[in-house]
């Protein structure tokens, strides 16, 4: 068996290298000033969009749809509704782009809209699932005679999210952004409007909880 450290690190490195999958220009996250934003090519497209240019909106959509889709998929987990949520995000963008003042990078602004849509979705849907259905599902899975090793317990994306669903929203967001999206703690702190130390401890706490959940399920499985 290779060490888990190697696996975890390489996974994260791979995720970090996957820059093209991120939303927009990440180097400007949260630090973009008005002057910086104007130098950014996206800023010009935003200005055209604010002026009502439909082609500009299409350009914004094309540039960012993949990132928004990826963010939403990771934040809410496997779901057939992701396309609907992507649509909702861009509707919100179109509706409120007139109020975007360029004080932060467009990608940051878009990210916040995305995360707000994801939070709403998780609140409405995830809460019920977490509180009632998840328990039933877990007990059904536990009821099988096969011992639940990580190989069969976490074999699918859904099963991974069954574990992540048991974290609180903030811990879940932090864990996903750091581990799957490859953001640094500083970037997450800026995106979520928190301090680096808070994000660090939230991440540590999320991992601790995951370990505890796996331990509990392993003991019962």
């Amino acid at each position, binding site marked *: 068996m290779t060490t888990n450290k190697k696996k975890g690190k390489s996974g994260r490195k791979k*995720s970090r290298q996957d820059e093209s999958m991120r939303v927009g220009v990440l180097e400007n996250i949260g630090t973009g000033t008005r002057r910086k934003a104007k130098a950014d090519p996206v800023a010009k497209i935003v200005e055209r969009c604010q002026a009502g240019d439909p082609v500009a909106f299409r350009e914004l959509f094309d540039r960012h*749809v993949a990132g928004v889709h990826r963010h939403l998929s990771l934040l809410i987990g496997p779901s057939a509704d992701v396309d609907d949520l992507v649509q909702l995000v861009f509707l919100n963008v179109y509706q409120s782009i007139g109020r975007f003042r360029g004080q932060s990078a467009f990608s940051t602004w878009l990210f916040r809209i995305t995360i*707000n849509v994801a939070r709403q979705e998780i609140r409405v849907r995830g809460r019920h699932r977490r509180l009632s259905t998840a328990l039933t599902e877990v007990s059904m899975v536990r009821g099988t005679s096969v011992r639940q090793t990580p190989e069969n317990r976490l074999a699918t994306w859904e099963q991974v999210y069954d574990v992540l669903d048991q974290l609180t929203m903030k811990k879940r967001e932090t864990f996903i952004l750091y581990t799957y999206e490859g953001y640094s703690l500083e970037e997450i702190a800026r995106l979520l409007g928190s301090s680096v130390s808070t994000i660090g401890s939230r991440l540590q706490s999320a991992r601790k909880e995951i370990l505890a959940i796996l331990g509990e399920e392993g003991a019962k499985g």
Partner: protein
Amino acid sequence: MSRRLGPDCRRARRDLLRQDALDAVGRGWLELHLRRCDECSALAEGLARIEQGHELPPPISEESSLQIYDRLIPAVHEIAVDLAHPPRPWYTRRPVQWGFGLAAAAALLVAFAFLGAEPETTLPESRSPAVAVADRGAPTTHHGLIDRCEGVVVLDGTKIGAGDGKFEVRQGTAIDVDENARLAFRIGDAARVAVVGDTTWRISVATDTLIEMVLEKGRLAVEYDGTSGRALDVRTPDSLVRVRGTVFTIEVVPDEGTRVSVLEGKVEVVPRGAGSVVELDEGELVTMPGGEYGPIEDTQRALAAEVDALDDYLAYVGRLVRFDGSPERVKVEVDGRVLGSTPLVARLPEGPVNYRLTAPGMEPLEGTLADEREGDAIAFALAPAPDYQPSVALAPQEPQLGRAGKPAAAGKTSPGVRWDLFQRARAAITAGDIPYAAGLLERAIEGAEGERLVTGLSMLAECYAAMGRYREAANAFDRVAALVPGTEIAQNSRYEVARLSMDRLGDFGRARAAFTAYVASPLGGALKQEAYYSLCELDAREGAHRDALHCFNEFLRSYPGGRSAPNARLWRGALFQDVERRWAEAERDLLSFIQAKPRHPRAEEARYRVALGRYQTGDRRGALRALEEYLRKHPNGQYSVRAQRLRQAILDPDFSWEPDSK
């Protein structure tokens, strides 16, 4: 049932969480352990699988992207048309032009008089000079649902009990929250609202398209879902806050104005009189009517957490139960989380939960709530903590001494001799020869009984304490308390045992038992306040900082002007800083302590903490002022080196300084 892990497994699990920080030896050890231990290996494998995300979701295909865009276009077109031809707005801002304004107002009044405007949809609050009201639709009723209610809260003239927690949110719904109370509730699926401490709140408009709240005084936090299609406005005496989907707080501060902060999203603040509209982004705070911007402080974050706190634990679908009983202000913990103090109405998650009720001096009550249904009340009466058990064994009961004239038993002191010994001991105490007095008293109490034994033992205990023989002093006081239970003398003796154990012996367990017995005793006593304070101090000294913070909060609620209140504020200020990083509240407490006790030995610490708190909140100028004051008053104080380094860090940004809590 959880199995106790071996030390290697515990270490391995700790190491798994900080793999990046392990050195080569640590990694080697972990690898070796994972090879040997199947259970830890499975956990490590599971964590790695989750961290890798197993199989990340496939990127969106071009076809899906096109489909989304195609579905988007009609809606975008509709929005574009709306933007090009906006519908009649809810509000129209007009420049303040007195001549035109008066004419317009007169015309409006005439129009209202003739047309008989509906009072339900256009309330007087809405007719500020800067904001004119358009038609807002017919009044409607929304569903309100209470999540948590602590203390005395009056809803539409009725004190909130448990019930099903449902109420109607309509035009005129009013909520009054007492000084130490708080209420968290939802309005349909559109908003979650928390009103905290001495607040008057009401609904002035409730239609399908708009909810307007009025905050006459106090503090509130709101999380509002702007996607529901309804607009939300909050009116304060000097501003109108327009919200379109956000988390924000509003505080009406006497003599200052309205403080609005935005935690998420954006709001627009319209001053009531002249002045321009302020747009507030996430992370910003503004004080109206002046329009001064500032950073959000921990006070606002704590207030916002009132609506956010429910996220983590309390469920949307749980049942609402009421905790009430005696004594008042009992701390309620459910599944290890402090929900507040009684009387408390709280929404609990589905399924069985464990609760624990605690109050100083009372026996804690624990149990499980499984069958309770919506609206049930959990009535309780905490019993006083068990009677105080002295930690020393009493001497066996002496035989009754004979009457005068009969010879005393061998080895015992006769009453005449005892009387003489007492007189000589008193004289020795007066002369200051305490050890000699103690020797005389030791002989005098041999075989003594009743009042004389109690007096002798008390004097002896005082002598021991004066001589530094604290353990013997505490034991003697213990014996006194046990000899005359249920009396004021016993109460005072317990207090002495507690103080000696806490201050001199470091025996916190014995101190806690004695203080608890003192506080719990129905006799009360002049030192009850001090005993309560000491119990809080014990929590702080033992490192139970959160308990200590809660205890000092409760203490200050019970004795806000008490003798120990300044010291309690010092402790609470320090705990606010160290535990909750609530710098603004900490500063208030610390300054209050300094003002009350400027020459107290810990005033030095308080001054340094004030500077530290200001530095942490970015108020460098204020921090510098506080540091100058500290260094002037305590040039060689125990924090002077730290103060100088902090000062240097403020003046020289390149100077490296690691802030610490003290």
